[in-house]
């Protein structure tokens, strides 16, 4: 059946598109003389080399380890602080100028200070990711508190909830969808930061792999292979966070009511 066949084809559209691009890539590389980029076949061989050495798994784990800790530390400090400060407007007025000053500083600008404080190693990278995640999460938590509809707060007051129960049963669920959305975006940011941090502040991880492959012998096939792996892992992290947004008690926050 032709219609069915076309529908089937539609599902594979992204795959077909990518395959076409890769073919085009190979053709262009053949036509253009000199070192523009390694071809797809070279990259594929590079990936095989990486896998055979077993180094790649170690590097992936190292990068994920740093992202996880940096992100979680930021999450457990920035969210409670942001919620508290956002709830007490005076606290926000005091803190906001400082936050607005620190926020536009790229986390990468902290690299010298990170090395000064923590030396070259995991702690430095974790610190940089922490800095990169802390401010976006803090600001989201602060604005999420402001945006809680007054009626939820009033219902909480009316039902006589003690403060701890109020936080747990009204405040937290009311801000959860926004925090999850912000966490997804922030985790993406953390994955950007870790690669850059690893190029300077540590001697392992995917960022280190890329810079090392270039420095130690212009192995651009490994550079591109590393980039592709970084992209795939970033995509998987994003998908995992998206799954959270489909949880039923959060879903109300994402639909227009």
């Amino acid at each position: 059946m032709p219609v069915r066949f076309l529908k089937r084809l539609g599902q594979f559209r992204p795959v077909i598109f990518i395959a076409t691009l890769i073919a085009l890539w190979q053709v262009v590389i053949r036509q253009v003389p000199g070192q523009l980029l390694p071809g797809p076949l070279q990259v594929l061989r590079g990936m095989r080399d990486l896998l055979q050495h077993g180094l790649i798994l170690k590097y992936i784990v190292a990068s994920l380890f740093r992202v996880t800790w940096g992100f979680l530390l930021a999450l457990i400090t920035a969210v409670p602080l942001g919620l508290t400060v956002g709830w007490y407007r005076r606290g926000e007025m005091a803190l906001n100028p400082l936050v607005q000053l620190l926020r536009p500083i790229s986390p990468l600008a902290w690299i010298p200070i990170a090395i000064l404080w923590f030396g070259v190693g995991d702690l430095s990278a974790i610190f940089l990711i922490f800095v990169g995640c802390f401010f976006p999460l803090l600001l989201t938590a602060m604005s999420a508190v402001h945006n809680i509809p007054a009626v939820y707060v009033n219902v909480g007051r009316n039902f006589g909830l003690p403060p701890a129960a109020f936080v747990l049963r009204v405040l937290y669920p009311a801000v959860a969808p926004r925090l999850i959305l912000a966490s997804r975006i922030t985790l993406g940011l953390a994955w950007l930061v870790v690669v850059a941090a690893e190029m300077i502040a540590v001697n392992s991880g995917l960022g280190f792999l890329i810079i090392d492959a270039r420095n130690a012998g212009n192995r651009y096939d490994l550079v591109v292979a590393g980039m592709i792996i970084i992209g795939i892992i970033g995509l998987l992290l994003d998908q995992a966070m998206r799954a959270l947004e489909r949880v039923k008690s959060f879903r109300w926050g994402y639909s227009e009511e």
Partner: protein
Amino acid sequence: MAAEATIPLSSRKAKLQMRDVSFAFERDGKSIPVLDKISLDIGDGEFVCVVGPSGCGKSTLLNVMAGFLSPTTGMVAINGETVRRPDPRRIMVFQDHGVFPWLTVEGNIEFGISGLSTAERKERVAHYVQMVRLQGFEHTYPPDLSGGMKQRLQVARALAMNPDVLYLDEPFGALDAITRVMMRSELLRIWQAERRTIIFVTHDVDEAVQLADRIVVLSSRPARIQDVHSVDIPHPRNISSSGYLQHRDDLLQKIGLAYSA
């Protein structure tokens, strides 16, 4: 109860007393008066509607009664006890978005009664789910309910607390005409079954005449009590009977033609 020497507006024993309640909002350093010396007694088990021109301070009056706002001068007392803050014995039903979207129907009804034993809680949830006719929707989340169902859920959550006073702030205002009529008769049915004191704010004169024992008519802002109108027709009220229409016309006249628009 040692009441002051005031003439009770209702023949029943006063549940709620307001004495010279004024309220003013502060905005840009200026004080905007909203309520002007309102005194009112409401009897136990009475159904009172508050009507008045839009923006006159009906909702503010309800919020002061319920303790969400403190009166600038004067006092509100329930059972002789001054109201200073919201209280789980008196529950407000809000016009809109009052149910928690992160809890199921069951979760919402249970919200205020987590102190009860599981068996008691289940029993009460079942009772009020049935009363507001939400059977089969116990595990549904509010975004999947219609507007009328959400308001019934809010009423059920309020009743599950076993409150002695129920405040309703234009609870059916956002609903379509047919749902609104159905919700009125459901509320009447519930009131007749449970006999709570109900204070119901509305801008709909028909709604007030259909529901209330007494109707408090407010003036435009700053609101004063312009009139208190008793409706002595037994329920269910026939909305085309001459008595009903007489009450309706009287009321419209009291509010003034400006309000008929």
